[in-house]
């Protein structure tokens, strides 16, 4: 029975296109005890760690998800005939960071933080579903306000937004950082 539960959970994670949360698993498997489910998940994850497998179950965006392993990247690119996966532009990353650390936030606030107009970058992020509109600010002009989305978490392999270092931790990282060589910056 226990093994069967493990199998069922594996098939559920497999079939879900988005990270499958523990709550969802529990709400599907009502005939099983919660502790049984949690135990089975733990065992399932252990199996994947110990066995030599080409795919893995990862924690991402608050749930469990199948993915390939990093070391097989080059073979997959060959199969799919993709040269490389596109990365976000530096402007997009900067805008995302501003949103992630200051959300909810308006476009004007993002632009002020970055010192550059951010409307076209914001549009890209909206279209990529990395950012979402969550309402309006109660201030003159009632501008739209934005937040990072669930896809943002999955894209960066975060489980929750709290996985990002706090602003204090960021400052600490900065203090420890060496002054970069000029060449490094020029190459960016």
């Amino acid at each position, binding site marked *: 029975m226990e093994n069967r539960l493990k199998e069922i959970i594996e098939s559920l994670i497999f*079939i879900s296109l988005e990270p499958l949360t523990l709550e969802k698993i529990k709400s599907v498997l009502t005939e099983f005890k919660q502790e049984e489910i949690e135990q089975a998940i733990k065992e399932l994850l252990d199996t994947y760690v110990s066995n030599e497998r080409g795919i893995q179950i990862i924690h991402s965006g608050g749930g469990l998800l199948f993915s390939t392993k990093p070391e097989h990247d080059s073979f997959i690119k060959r199969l799919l005939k993709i040269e490389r996966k596109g990365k976000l532009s530096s402007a997009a*990353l900067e805008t995302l*960071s501003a949103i992630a650390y200051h959300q909810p936030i308006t476009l004007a606030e993002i632009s002020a933080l970055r*010192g550059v107009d951010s409307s076209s970058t914001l549009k890209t992020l909206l279209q990529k579903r990395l950012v979402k509109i969550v309402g309006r600010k109660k201030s003159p002009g009632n501008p739209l306000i934005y937040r990072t989305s669930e896809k943002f978490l999955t894209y960066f392999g975060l489980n929750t937004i709290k996985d990002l270092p706090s*602003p204090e931790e960021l400052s600490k990282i900065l203090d420890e950082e060496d002054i970069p060589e000029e060449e490094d910056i020029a190459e960016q």
Partner: protein
Amino acid sequence: MDASTDYQVKLEVFQGPLDLLLFLIRKKKIDIHDIPIATVTREYLKYLNQKERINLDREAEFLLIAALLIYIKSQMLLPREKPLEDEKDPRQILVNRLLDYQRIKAASSLLREKEEEELLKWKRSFLPHLLQEDAMDYIEISLFDLGESFFVLMKKKEREGIKTIKGKEYSLEEKMKEILAFLEANEFLDFLDYFSQAESFEEALVSFLGLLELIKARIVIALQESHFQPIKVWLRRKERLTNN
């Protein structure tokens, strides 16, 4: 580092004026909380002077910060009776902005690392094979999706270019007969094609209403293979035949 190498860093590599300022501060190993404003302003303007190919929008953003620097410098130069208190330091606004921006930069290099890690892991974007399941295209929608959907709808209508209203009158019954006659002669009717042939908005509207009536009366059937695909109208009798 001598002055000649300074200019090898092109302005375009900077995300914006704050990025440039931060770069200057780090390069000169200046304490961000105690910026020698005169030096930094001079350096900043030096970079700005080599603007060869920056576009006007960007230039304005760089100039805005230049103006702020010059303003702060002028404030610092004003004779004071007693030393400035911390919160009255005219540099404070700039320092706060730089600190905020610095954190954003740090966060974005962190996100870049995470992105690189994640891009090596491939996830499926398709629904895996199910044993007997109707896989339909259901999506989680956001406010943006909703707005975008409406926007696309309106754009589509705009493109369809409904023509000016003419005085001619169209009868619903006539149009229904016309559609049926068309369907008798042709296999099916392409919805968009048919309406784009309408001479006026009024004619299109009457045709449309006529079509709705025919659908309601179950004489014809309108099918769309999937979203955004052309809609085809068939006589019900013919549709049954093709199914058999």
